[in-house]
Every structure is written in C-alpha cells, then in structure tokens.
C-alpha cells in the first residue's frame, strides 16, 4: 500500500515539475543578467544627426539604428550553453535608451562567455503574425516579402547618391544562402569563476561600434551603396559586418 502512495506522489510531483519548468535542461537557480548595449561611433557615444567619419573616410550622420537580439546565452565551453533564454526577443533602438538595457533571468552556472544572436530565427519569419518585440508595428518587418529586418541603419552622407544624400540599410534574410542572423560570442575577462548572483545583478556593458558597420569583414562604402532594403547577397555582406560591432566593455555587479 505504501508503495502505491509513493507512486502517486511521484507522479504528481513529476507532473508539476514538467509543467512548470521550461528550461529543465539547465541547472541552478535563475538570477538576473543585464546586458547594456551602448552604441558608439568614432570612439564616443552615438548621437543622432552628429557628423562622424567612417573608417573609409566618409562623413555620415545617423538618424535611425535598431537591431534585434535573441537567444541570450551563457557558455562555459563552446558550443554548449550552460544557460539560455530560448524565447526572448529584444529590439535595441538607439533612439530609445530603455531598449538598450535588457534583463533576463538565467540559470546560474559557471560561465566564461556571453553569446547572443543578432536577428531572428527563420521559424519566426514563416509562422504568421507575431507580437511583443516582433510586432510588425516596430517597423522591422518586410510586408511585401515576408520576413524580419534584423538590423536597420539610416542616415545621410555628403557622399551618398541616394535621395537628399540619405542612406537606408535594412538588413535581413533568413533563407538558406541568405541568412543574416549572426551569433556573437564575447569572452569574459579572466577571473576564477563567473556565476550569476542572487543578491547582485550581473551587468555586461557592451560597446556597439558603428564604425565597423562600414568596414570590418567587408568594405561597404556609402558612396557605392546608398540603400539596401531586401534580403540577398548585399544584406549578407552587411550582416558579416554587423557581426563585428560588439565588444565587451566591462562586467559590473550592482
């Protein structure tokens, strides 16, 4: 009889555990990780409508800069994460300081790398209407060719051949051969062991250096490309560049 009781109890507990734990593959309590994205240009905090010079030597001013962040993960040894936010999408918008600070609850396990993805996985590009950060009212969805714009940079330059010297870069594409999601891995400074803490928020300050948008993996002069607003090879070249925008500035405990 006692065995039956225990079995029933075991069944009930199992049901409870399965139904309430979504990230059951990760161990440890969940604590707060804060990512603080700080857009910059020419080594100073990015300001809209201020003139900068890109590494190619072209003057430019920015009027819009946004990108999607997803799959925020902590790693110990590549490539298996020790903690991951599976379902979170965040739109970082240089015009909205609040959007540059992202807080997620992650399981605390020892880690020495931060990983996140710039862009949205293909499944969310083909599964109908989405909401939250993926709401099409955020202006990051191509309505004529279904799919998300993973990153957007708009502005002007005296060298742009676009209308009124503007440039418009809407970068996206999720199909095989034209993917623009990019995985970013940032190693943490050497220290005995990093873990998320119960009493302190772990904040990682990440520099987003726009200079590299124009020159890093590829040279993409404003004078030769003033607009790109569709998936394809040009989008892929910009994606290869925006994969290089990010460096870890500091990690602070607050």
């Amino acid at each position, binding site marked *: *009889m006692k065995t*039956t*009781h225990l079995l*029933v*109890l075991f*069944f*009930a507990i199992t*049901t*409870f555990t399965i*139904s*309430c734990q979504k990230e059951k593959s990760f161990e440890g309590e969940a604590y707060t990780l804060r990512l603080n994205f700080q857009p910059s240009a020419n080594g100073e905090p990015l300001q809209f409508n201020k003139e900068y010079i890109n590494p190619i030597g072209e003057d430019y001013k920015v009027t819009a800069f946004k990108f999607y962040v997803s799959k925020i993960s902590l790693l110990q040894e590549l490539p298996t994460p020790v903690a991951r936010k599976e379902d979170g999408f965040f739109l970082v918008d240089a015009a909205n300081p609040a959007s540059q600070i992202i807080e997620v609850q992650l399981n605390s396990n020892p880690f020495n790398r931060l990983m996140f993805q710039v862009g949205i996985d293909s499944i969310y*590009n*083909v*599964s*109908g*209407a*989405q*909401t939250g950060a993926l*709401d*099409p*009212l955020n202006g990051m*969805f191509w*309505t*004529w*060719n*279904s*799919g998300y714009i993973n990153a957007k940079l708009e502005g002007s330059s005296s060298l742009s051949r676009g209308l009124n010297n503007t440039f418009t870069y809407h970068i996206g594409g999720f199909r095989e051969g034209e993917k623009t999601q990019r995985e970013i891995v940032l190693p943490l400074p050497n220290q005995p062991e990093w873990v998320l803490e119960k009493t302190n928020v772990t904040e990682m300050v990440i520099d987003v250096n726009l200079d590299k948008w124009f020159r890093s993996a590829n040279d993409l002069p404003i004078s030769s490309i003033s607009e790109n607003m*569709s998936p*394809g090879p040009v989008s892929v070249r910009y994606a290869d560049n925006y994969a290089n925008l990010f460096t870890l500035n500091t990690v602070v405990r607050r």
Partner: protein
Amino acid sequence: MRRFITIWFLVMLAAGSFIIDSCNKNDKSGIQSPSILHIEVPANFPAPNDLFKDNPLTTEGFALGRKLFYDGRLAKDGIASCASCHQQFAAFSTFDHAFSHGIDNQFTTRNAPGIFNMAWHKELHWDGGINHLEVQPLAPLTAPNEMGETVENVIKKLNSDTRYRDMFKAAFGDENATSQRMLKALAQFMGMMVSGNSKYDQVMLGKTTFTLAEQSGYTIFKAKCGTCHKEPLFTDLSYRNTGMPINTGLKDLGRMRITRLSEDSLKFKVPSLRNVQVTAPYGHDGRFFSIGAVIDHYRLFVQDGPTVDPLVKKKISISLNEKADLVQFLNTLTDTAFIKDKRFSQPE
C-alpha cells in the same frame, strides 16, 4: 482501503491538473470562452494546410475578422477597406479593373486576385512573397498606393473604438487590440472562405451532369490546361512565365523580385480558375478582359523567351470550336453559393 487509495489518487490528480492549469493559463474567470468553428473541406479537396494551428477558429474571431475586412477606417483615408478591392460578387477580386484603386486615386500595380481556398495556399501574391496568410494584410495596409496606413495607427484606431474592444475581448479574452490579434482574426475570416460548390464540384460528386459542350470543354481542359490549372484547386500553386510580353511601364519581373534568380524572371503564380467567370480581367496586370482573350493568348500570342514555360512555349493548339466549349466548361467553375454566402458579406 482500496477506496481510500482511489480517493487519494483522484485528489492528487485534481491537484496536479490545478497546478498545470495555473502554470499555463492566465486567469480568464468570468469570460465566456469563444465557440469553436471548423473549416469546411469539400469532399473532392485534399486536406488543407494547418493554417489554424496557432490560431483556433472561433465564431468570435471570425466575426471580428469580418468586421475588420469591411472597415474603411483601417486605411489612411478612412474609406478604402479590404473589401474595396476584394468584392464578394467578384469572388473577392476587383470587378472590371485591371488595377484596383488605393487611397488618393492611386492605382495598384497588380490585378487583385480573388480570395478563396486560402487554406490550400502556402504562399500568397502573384510573386509568392507572402509566406503566411496572417501576415498578408500588412502588405495592402501599409503600401502607400493601397491603404497607406501604419500598423501603429491602425491599432490605435481599433483600441479607441469600444465596439472593437468588446469584439477583441470576446475573441481573445481581453480588450487589448494588438496587430497579432487583428491579423489572426483577419486570417480566420479569409481562411474560412472555401469555394468548392460549383457545378463542376456537383458533377464530380455525381449530383448532376455536364451539358455536351461542358463535357467536351472539360476533356479539352484536362488535355491542354489541367497541368498548371490542376484540379481540384485549379492551380498547381507554381510560378510560371506564360509568354506575356513584359509591360514596359511596370517592368514587373514577378517571382524574381522575391528569389532574385534570373530563372524566375517574369514568372507569376498560376491563378486558380475557380470562379473565373466573375473575376475578369485576367493576368497579373489584368491585361486580358475576357476569358476568350486569355485563350487566344495561348492559341496565338505567346511570346517565347528564356524563362517561358515549356508547356506553352510553342503555343497551345485550340480550335475555335474547342475554345467555345472550353469557355462553357470554365463557366461551370462559378460557385454561386460562395459569392452569395451571407457569412462572408458586409456585416450589419
């Protein structure tokens, strides 16, 4: 003792389901749950796509979609609704217009297709650029030459209207109008539009018979048109270049705009021929004003080119008698019950 165990088991089970319930659902107490609807699949149709997997069909969701479809306030000018260009009596295409009118007397650049049997289409638009029915309305809503509005403004308008707030609550559990809910409701309304009750369908189900001319037309159809306009949807959902010379004003490259592959240049989605009698004019740019003109294109005017479909490259041999019978057959594809179905008409 056995009874005790049974009771104990039931208690644990109840507790378990309570826990599951509290984990997965928001509290919806006091709200009547919407009533479930089902898509009607005609007996001679294949199984539809799983269009409603994440969007359960309900009477309330459908009713909201119907109101949205007919509401001109979704457009910038407050006049152009979905139904302005998708008219029920024309099987939800635009009657007698090669190009539909958007706001400010602007023309669109393609012929508005009919809306029916959407649950069997994976890709939409003449170039297949839309990959899900739920996101299709974003295209006409935001195109400057169609409804010219922003998604943000549309949602603002819906949230400031008490009638809509009530309908969103009935369909989705609370009053908040979001773009996702609006699009899911529209997908329910359009996805429910099934046209499969024409004379052709009646004949296929053995309920009636073709006239001699219709039967002859059907035989010709199967031999000369049925590969691309495949039964029972009367489209194989592929993209093909039918040898229509490019419109030099529009320079519309069709499918290539989406895939950027030169092999897709001038290819357009094969339109369904269901309700073809009421959906004139024809072609992606509406250049053919009668069914006869389309048939004549294939008989006489196909212009060869690198991507022209091998099936029409050398034109299609159709005599004038055959052409007349073919038209008779195509007229049996008109689904009068569908174009008069009150469920899909303007509400109130």
